């Protein structure tokens, strides 16, 4: 509705958003697998370095080969996002320029060169450099990718929680006042750890699935079992870590993006002692209060409180949406008056008084573009279910990796008890329940479950991004710039054309990548 009130093509906003989402989702298919596989191949090569056993060298090389395919296919897919900033989101791009510029420049210079140097040593250097230098290069390749992710996530975190900056009405840009406040904001740190650790789950799930496929085919048994041991440990630690970092993220969101939390929970009327919904009608008592405030009776505002105003736990009053919208309009009017006074060469007193009004109301600047307070509510259905998909699948991964770990490590007693329990539920034949051959270390059904986990892991990861990005709607920058102001005044037809082009390009590239990956998996390691 808001879009129709503007003097720009109404479809431009939605198509630009859809195009950005398509590009980001596609880019994010490659990044988490790169981060996750980097850990697993690093561990495999570390074992080779310590044991000097050629089996581990071949194992590390195999996972590095699959890492290489994924890495190559992901190259430059993120660049397209930057093209879109300049074309589709030019107002936004100018408005944030200095804040985005620094992290992205650091990302480009340090991480990119680090990755591209050490990845060459990793692939070409087995017979050229010492084992220690090669091992360091393998880990530094992964570290480079992780540092790269850090800076991108810093930029994203700033959009969700803009700190360390000051708006300059002369340049119309937010200028950085503290690099460290931007780079080390709590939102950025939590986002980084949650995103990177959850990416390790995808790497672990991928390795588990490949190994399980080999076990089902009765080939590469030793590589599969040994790799399963690494993957199950990494996967279990990562799944537990993602839960812990996710909890911390939830608390920060409760503080700085309470509307996102309310949308995730479909919480219209908040209050104390709020339960956490499993699904509508079933909830964990006190769960949401505990998640948001670390106390059982903590107050969690709902959508209605956030729109109508409420008193916070510390006694301060959160203004209503109407008041924020009014103060936002005052800020925008002051900005226009300030620039006009400057252009007309009016006295400093006049410009300074307008500047003071702008500064006083700037924290609600973006609300000045909102005509109807209902536009401040993010899409509830998507947030509610995407959050549940992410958390539900996260819990499933803990159980899954826990079972795989117990079975592949053959932990005395625990392994036998687990096998007998599975047998009691009919999930393992009785003859399989105690002593098993290496090939039957995991029951066939569990191997198929492992393969099915690959798309589920991606759904969980992409769902996390859906919550992060849909949850902050309508803002491109929280409280500063809504989507319908950030977007360029383009014809929607041109955005639709590039959307379709991307869809074709991305689908083709994805098909090619999956094809090459599957061929390499079928070919197997060169043992």
């Amino acid at each position, binding site marked *: 509705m808001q879009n129709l009130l503007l003097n720009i093509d109404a479809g431009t906003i939605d198509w630009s958003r859809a195009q950005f989402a398509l590009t980001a989702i596609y880019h994010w298919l490659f990044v988490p697998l790169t981060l996750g596989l980097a850990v697993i191949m690093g561990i495999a090569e570390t074992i080779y370095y310590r044991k000097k056993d050629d089996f581990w060298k071949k194992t590390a090389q195999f996972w590095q080969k699959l890492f290489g395919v994924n890495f190559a296919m992901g190259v430059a897919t993120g660049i397209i996002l930057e093209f879109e900033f300049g*074309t589709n989101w030019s107002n936004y791009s100018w*408005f944030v320029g200095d804040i985005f510029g620094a992290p992205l420049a650091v990302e480009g210079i340090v991480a990119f060169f680090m990755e591209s140097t050490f990845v*060459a040593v990793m*692939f*070409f250097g087995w017979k050229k450099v010492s084992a220690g230098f090669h091992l360091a290069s393998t880990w530094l390749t992964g570290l480079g990718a992780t540092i790269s992710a850090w800076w991108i996530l810093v930029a994203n975190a700033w959009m969700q929680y803009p700190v360390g900056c000051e708006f300059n009405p002369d340049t119309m840009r937010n200028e950085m006042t503290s690099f460290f406040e931007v780079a080390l904001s709590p939102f950025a740190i939590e986002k980084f750890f949650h995103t990177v650790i959850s990416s390790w789950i995808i790497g672990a799930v991928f390795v588990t699935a490949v190994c399980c496929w080999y076990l089902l085919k009765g080939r590469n048994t030793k590589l599969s079992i040994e790799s399963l041991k690494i993957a199950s440990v990494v996967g279990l630690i990562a799944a537990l870590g993602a839960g812990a970092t996710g909890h911390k993220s939830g608390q920060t969101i409760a503080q700085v993006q309470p509307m996102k939390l309310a949308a995730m929970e479909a919480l219209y009327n908040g209050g104390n002692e709020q339960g956490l919904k499993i699904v509508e009608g079933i909830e964990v008592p006190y769960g949401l209060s505990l998640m948001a405030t670390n106390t059982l009776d903590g107050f969690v505002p709902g959508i209605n409180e956030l729109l109508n105003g409420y008193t916070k736990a510390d006694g301060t009053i959160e203004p209503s949406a109407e008041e924020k919208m009014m103060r936002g309009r005052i800020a925008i009017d002051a900005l226009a008056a300030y620039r006009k006074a400057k252009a007309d060469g009016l006295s400093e007193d006049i410009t300074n008084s307008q500047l003071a009004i702008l500064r006083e109301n700037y924290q609600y600047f973006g609300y000045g573009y909102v005509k109807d307070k209902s536009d401040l509510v993010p899409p509830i259905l998507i947030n509610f279910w995407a959050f549940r998909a992410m958390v539900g699948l996260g819990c499933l991964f803990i159980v899954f990796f826990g079972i795989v770990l117990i079975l592949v490590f053959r932990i005395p007693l625990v392994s036998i008890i687990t096998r007998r329990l599975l047998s009691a539920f009919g999930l393992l034949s009785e003859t399989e329940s105690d002593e098993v051959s290496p090939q039957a270390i995991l029951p066939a059904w569990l191997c198929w479950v492992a393969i099915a986990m690959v798309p589920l892991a991606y759904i969980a990861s992409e769902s996390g991004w859906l919550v992060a990005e849909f949850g902050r709607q309508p803002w491109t920058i929280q409280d500063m710039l809504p989507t319908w102001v950030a977007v360029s005044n383009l014809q929607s037809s041109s955005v639709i054309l*590039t959307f379709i082009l991307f869809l074709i390009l991305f689908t083709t590239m994805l098909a*090619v990548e999956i094809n*090459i990956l599957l061929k390499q998996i079928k070919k197997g390691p060169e043992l």
Partner: protein
Amino acid sequence: MNKNCFLYRAFDLYYDGFRHMTVGKTLWIIILVKLFVIFIILKLFFFPNFLKQHASGDEAGFVASELTERANP
């Protein structure tokens, strides 16, 4: 050239590595095609710099009028 010097060894790492690539050759072809499509076709024909095209050098003024006018549709 001394085969132990750093520059020679660095060159040899890449030269020998590229020469003996197997699946890497296919990947490099895909990367080059992809870079061509992204930087030559998409960037040049579909993703111009909107502000450079429309702001006539006064980006701040252009964005200021966009931001103030969109508050008053």
